[in-house]
């Protein structure tokens, strides 16, 4: 069966976590870890008579994101009410934005490049308020009551909607990682915080019906949910069963998507302009002012790494899209590390080692001086690459410097020719058959070198070892007696 094309679009909700206050009131926005219902006031609780006051910084942060995503910022934007009842909505409407019916969101259009240079288009960016958080006694199914904590209610959210430009779950994840990097780089949102970035996805196979997936809580889950959904839809198509247009819920415990009750009525949100908030005009000057204050963005950083340090595209992309990695890289270079070698170490072993150790790149044990030291040790011929990996892993784990590890464990490369000759002789004596074969088979030569390495625990200088082994074999071939 031919592969059917897949189209994936994302709808991402990111909290503007770096704001001090909520979107429409002065309550502290930093609610995590606070006792329930401590960050509440008449406004975010929707008390009768209260009125919303939009946060200027939220608009500025939104504009910064729109610039970074190459979006067209509206000259005059409006807030709209999205009307629906739900226990997490204090006013039973959400102050949001609307594209259409006279509504103008913060920005429209735009794009983002993911690794490999593919362009993912943005449809729109809008600002809205986060609902409250619900908790249940027991599970949602058997709970007799719902517990409402309104600390999150009214926190500023940015909704970013993409065009369905992603063709597989990996691209969706790559997009999210890239987006998170940008938001963190801009200093508007910390995607590491629990629930700070949430995502809904829509997916269609072969130009067929679009299915929405809600409740995806992390980037890893996005990839999983989409992969599951593709498999599910493929199986339906293979059996000639029509894919229904529906909204499905990602169950991250069972790792499947489930249909939200089919009988649930189609929502009618009755959008209309929020009468309590006047329109917001965004002037060119305002945009320029923010543009000037923007930090270097990942894409600009990538270009600079290629231009300034001669990094490979792949390394430049990987490092530049991660803020912590970029910081580490630039520190290493500043401390005199060779950019290309440093970049190879960062992209290669450092990432996988830290992942293996469950360490963040921001962990103090991941210090730039360690990387620079390591690269210097290799360059000076003091240790082999293989040893270097071992040293790096140990250095990360123990927080001992690479040099100290090498000294303490005696890992300096053996470059003493006389010493190596003794080891080679030993290996030849123990492997007479192999030596005979090595005279006409290069693979077996490598085997002999490997034996030398084993005996020296990897410390033998590979180049010198090769020369001695080859020289010894030549002498045997030529019948020259051992001296």
């Amino acid at each position, binding site marked *: 069966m031919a592969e059917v094309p897949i189209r994936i679009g994302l709808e991402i909700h990111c909290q503007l976590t770096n704001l001090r206050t909520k979107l429409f009131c002065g309550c502290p926005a930093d609610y995590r870890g606070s006792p329930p219902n401590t960050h509440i006031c008449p406004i975010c609780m929707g008390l009768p008579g209260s009125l919303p006051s939009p946060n200027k910084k939220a608009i500025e942060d939104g504009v910064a994101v729109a610039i970074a995503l190459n979006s067209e910022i509206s000259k005059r934007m409006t807030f709209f009410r999205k009307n629906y009842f739900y226990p997490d909505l204090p006013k039973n409407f959400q102050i949001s934005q609307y594209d259409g019916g006279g509504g103008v969101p913060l920005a429209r259009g735009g794009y983002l490049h993911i690794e490999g240079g593919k362009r993912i288009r943005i449809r729109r960016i809008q600002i809205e308020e986060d609902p409250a958080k*619900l908790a249940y006694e027991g599970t949602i199914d058997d709970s007799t009551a719902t517990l409402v904590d309104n600390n999150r209610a009214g926190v500023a959210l940015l909704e970013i909607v993409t065009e369905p430009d992603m063709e597989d779950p990996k691209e969706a994840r790559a997009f999210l990682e890239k987006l998170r990097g940008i938001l963190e780089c801009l200093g508007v949102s910390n995607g590491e915080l629990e629930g700070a970035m949430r995502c809904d996805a829509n997916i269609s196979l072969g130009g067929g019906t679009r299915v929405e997936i809600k409740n995806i809580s992390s980037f890893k889950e996005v990839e999983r949910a989409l992969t599951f959904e593709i498999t599910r839809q493929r199986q339906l198509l293979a059996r000639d069963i029509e894919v229904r247009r529906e909204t499905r819920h990602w169950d991250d415990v069972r790792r499947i998507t489930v249909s939200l009750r089919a009988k649930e009525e189609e929502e009618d949100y009755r959008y209309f302009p929020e009468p309590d908030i006047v329109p917001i005009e965004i002037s060119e000057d305002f945009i320029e002012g923010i543009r000037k204050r923007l930090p270097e963005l990942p894409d600009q950083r990538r270009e600079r790494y290629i231009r300034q340090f001669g990094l490979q595209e792949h390394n430049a992309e990987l490092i530049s899209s991660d803020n912590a990695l970029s910081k580490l890289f630039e520190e290493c270079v500043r401390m005199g590390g060779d950019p290309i070698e440093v970049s190879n170490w960062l992209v290669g072993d450092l990432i996988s080692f830290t992942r293996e150790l469950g360490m963040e790149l921001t962990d103090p044990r991941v210090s730039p001086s360690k990387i620079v030291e390591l690269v210097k040790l290799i360059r000076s011929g003091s240790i082999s690459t293989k040893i270097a990996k071992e040293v790096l892993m140990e250095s990360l784990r123990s927080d001992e410097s690479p040099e100290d590890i090498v000294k303490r464990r005696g890992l300096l490369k053996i470059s003493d020719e006389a010493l190596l000759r003794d080891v080679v002789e030993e290996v030849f004596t123990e492997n007479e058959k192999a030596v005979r074969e090595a005279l006409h088979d290069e693979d077996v030569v490598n085997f002999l070198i490997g034996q030398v390495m084993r005996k020296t625990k990897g410390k033998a200088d590979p180049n010198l070892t090769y020369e001695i082994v080859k020289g010894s074999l030549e002498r045997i071939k030529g019948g020259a007696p051992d001296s």
Partner: protein
Amino acid sequence: MGERITLEDLERLCWLSRLRLSQEEKVAFLGQLNKILDYFERIDEVDVEGIPPTHHVIDLTNVLREDEVEEPQPDEVLELAPRRRGRYILAPRIL
């Protein structure tokens, strides 16, 4: 005049606005609401082609607040909730 809102429409509108009506209310409302809508029909006479809507009657824009914390006084707000458990507000269950 024709029936603009049927009983079925009325029930859907009540659902959308989460209102329970008694049987008597439903009967009375059907007649009243249709009569009101008959009266509203006169706006159809107006030519509104090309006329922009007025959402805000004043020409005011960009009234924004600085991002400065106002210390909340949560307890007096929380105490208004008829049912609570600890500091949580108790809402009915969600099926």
